[in-house]
């Protein structure tokens, strides 16, 4: 790789604590390499699958392969992996996270070692791979395809959520029991790989730490209702590292406590991200453009701050009933409650849980406009996005814009087109302000 050609992709952050994330990202891969050297087990894994605490409790080092794709994009070192996967026959419309992961493993197999100059030292070979159906289908199939390139036992967990129209009282126990079976199956798989029985006390401790971190993260986001905005979305796309890649650890709790203190201080003292906040924008959906995060600063040059976002903190804290005393039962209940949090509201209004969530955010955060990011290769966050935008428009009269590119594949991005759209969007925000 020609390191001389590295271009700036990142955004200027709004908080000091967010600037501490980069070493945490490096440590993810460093910890995985060290684990391999010390005989600890390393697992390729998918974040937001509700099983993170199981890995922590079993002393398995998580290696989030999707995150590695985002890192490659931020370093603008993705093409060699994308092209390799495509040369191996994977379609350009397959999830680009998956293409980078598959391309990386394919190149490593051919070379016999980690491709030279891979960001943050590359990913070590895993001892196992744990896929998931949560959020999208490539996450379930990805590691099965990876078996072309490396030998490691694979387990894919099914994570289920009922449709909003379902009678929740009628189907609840079926969903929870099925989910528990899935977690139990994963635990048995992990026990087989580690030759260690699951310690339920350790699982409880990981769950306690995980929930504490996510509660703090939620509390931080509630502080962001403050005007001017104390923390922008570009910070969210950094600080999510603690919540997703350090779930179930004290490190995540400590990080969010520190961030909470900083954001609270800023909110209390009316310290905004920019000096003259004119417009508060909601990042309505779609994975972030890891290749061009500086675009958030471009919006700020027009006085527009991304006050909040609807991606990568997909669920609010939930209250699992006190009669649940088994940690695996707890995980199953928590998954169910997270998945159905907006169902009741949806049934009473728009019929769509995401629309309900966005309407609540728009009201609470005094939002002036909504931006969506349609990622060509991310079906999970893009299919239905236009529908959500249209439905949202029926319940609120705000300027909305959909930018199109991809989360990591730069070939789908056009800076000129984005800037033309952003210019018109800012003008629409201004016209709305004039009317008021």
């Amino acid at each position, binding site marked *: 790789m020609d390191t001389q050609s590295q271009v700036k992709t990142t955004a200027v952050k709004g908080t000091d604590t967010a600037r501490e994330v980069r070493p945490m990202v490096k440590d993810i891969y460093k910890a995985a390499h060290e684990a391999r050297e010390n005989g600890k087990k390393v697992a390729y894994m998918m974040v937001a699958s509700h099983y993170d605490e199981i890995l922590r409790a079993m002393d398995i080092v998580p290696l989030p392969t999707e995150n590695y794709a985002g890192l490659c994009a931020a370093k603008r070192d993705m093409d060699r992996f994308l092209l390799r996967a495509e040369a191996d026959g994977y379609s350009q419309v397959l999830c680009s996270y998956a293409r980078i992961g598959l391309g990386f493993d394919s190149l490593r197999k051919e070379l016999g070692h980690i491709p030279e100059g891979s960001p943050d030292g590359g990913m070590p070979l895993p001892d196992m791979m744990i896929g998931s159906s949560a959020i999208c289908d490539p996450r379930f199939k990805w590691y099965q395809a990876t078996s072309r390139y490396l030998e490691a036992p694979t387990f894919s967990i099914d994570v289920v959520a009922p449709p909003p129209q379902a009678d929740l009282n009628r189907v609840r126990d079926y969903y929870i029991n099925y989910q528990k079976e899935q977690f139990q199956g994963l635990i048995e798989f992990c026990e087989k790989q580690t030759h260690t029985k699951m310690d339920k006390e350790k699982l409880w401790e990981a769950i306690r730490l995980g929930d504490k971190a996510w509660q703090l993260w939620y509390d931080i986001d509630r502080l962001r209702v403050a005007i001017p905005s104390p923390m922008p979305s570009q910070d969210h796309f950094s600080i999510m590292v603690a919540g997703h890649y350090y779930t179930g650890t004290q490190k995540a709790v400590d990080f969010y406590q520190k961030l909470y203190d900083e954001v609270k201080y800023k909110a209390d003292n009316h310290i905004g991200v920019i000096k003259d906040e004119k417009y508060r924008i909601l990042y309505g959906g779609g994975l972030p453009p890891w290749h061009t995060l500086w675009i958030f600063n471009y919006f700020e040059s027009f006085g527009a701050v991304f006050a909040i976002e609807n991606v990568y903190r997909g669920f609010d804290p939930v209250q699992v009933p006190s009669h649940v005393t088994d940690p695996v039962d707890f995980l199953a209940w928590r998954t169910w409650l997270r998945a159905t949090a907006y169902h009741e509201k949806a049934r009473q209004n728009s019929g769509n849980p995401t629309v309900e969530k966005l309407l609540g955010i728009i009201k609470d955060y005094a939002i002036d406009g909504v931006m969506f990011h349609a990622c060509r290769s991310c079906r999970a966050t893009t299919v239905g996005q236009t529908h959500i935008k249209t439905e949202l428009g029926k319940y609120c009269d705000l*300027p909305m814009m*959909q930018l199109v590119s991809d989360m990591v594949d730069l070939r789908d991005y056009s800076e000129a087109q984005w800037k033309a759209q952003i*210019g*018109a969007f800012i*003008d*629409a925000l201004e*016209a*709305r302000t004039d009317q008021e």
Partner: protein
Amino acid sequence: MNTINQYYAGLDMGSVSIKAVIISNQKITGWALIPSGGNYKTAATTVMTQALAAAKIRREDLCGIGVTGLGAQSTPFDARPMSDISCQARGCHVFFPSARTLIDIGGQFTKTAKITDKGKIADFLMSEKCATGSGRFLQVISRILQVPIEEIGELSLTSQHPIKFSTNCAVFAESETISRIAEGAKPADILAGVHKAMASKVNMLLKRIKLAPDVVLTGGGGEDAGLAKAIGQIIGHPILVPPNPRLTAAFGAACLTMETTSG
């Protein structure tokens, strides 16, 4: 503030051509249009010189310059880049105050916008990064048929049996066109088919922004009578076209500059 006899310039640095318009009191007093070529700065300087000459004024007579278009960042002038959709809306508003929906078909993209009764943007949508959503599609077909681009509109209107394209991709449409020529299809019918395909794409954008009449067509697409007719038919509303529709963004940029400069 009295703006009579005060001159403002608008520059639209598009992907295909660069346009300069000089206005005084919202009336065009001079304009020029040249191909963008490979050097935006040189082309911008040349087109501005020509427009000033047409208006019979000197550069020093200008009270302000507004610049827009995909190449706006490359302007050699001291001018703040402006959104081309907003400039189009502003320009359309002067010609047609009743306009509420704008369609701009340019060399790179098709843009649609809802505009307010004050000529400002209320909502907008752009075509995807795809040649069939842009004037480039027409250029490709014009080249294959060897019909000058400025003649395709009138020729299309003579079509009796428009052909139906089985693809929405410019690359495949090119090979499909060649196949149809080989089968003996008439150029007029091929062009009418292309216009219908483009109109269908425009209609999808308009449905999403919920079009409201009156509807204005600008950009190079506005000079194509066949395309205007096809769009009008599919949306069920008459299409208004400003005089010299390729100049609307430059004209709007000049008007917006006049408003912001003169307060």
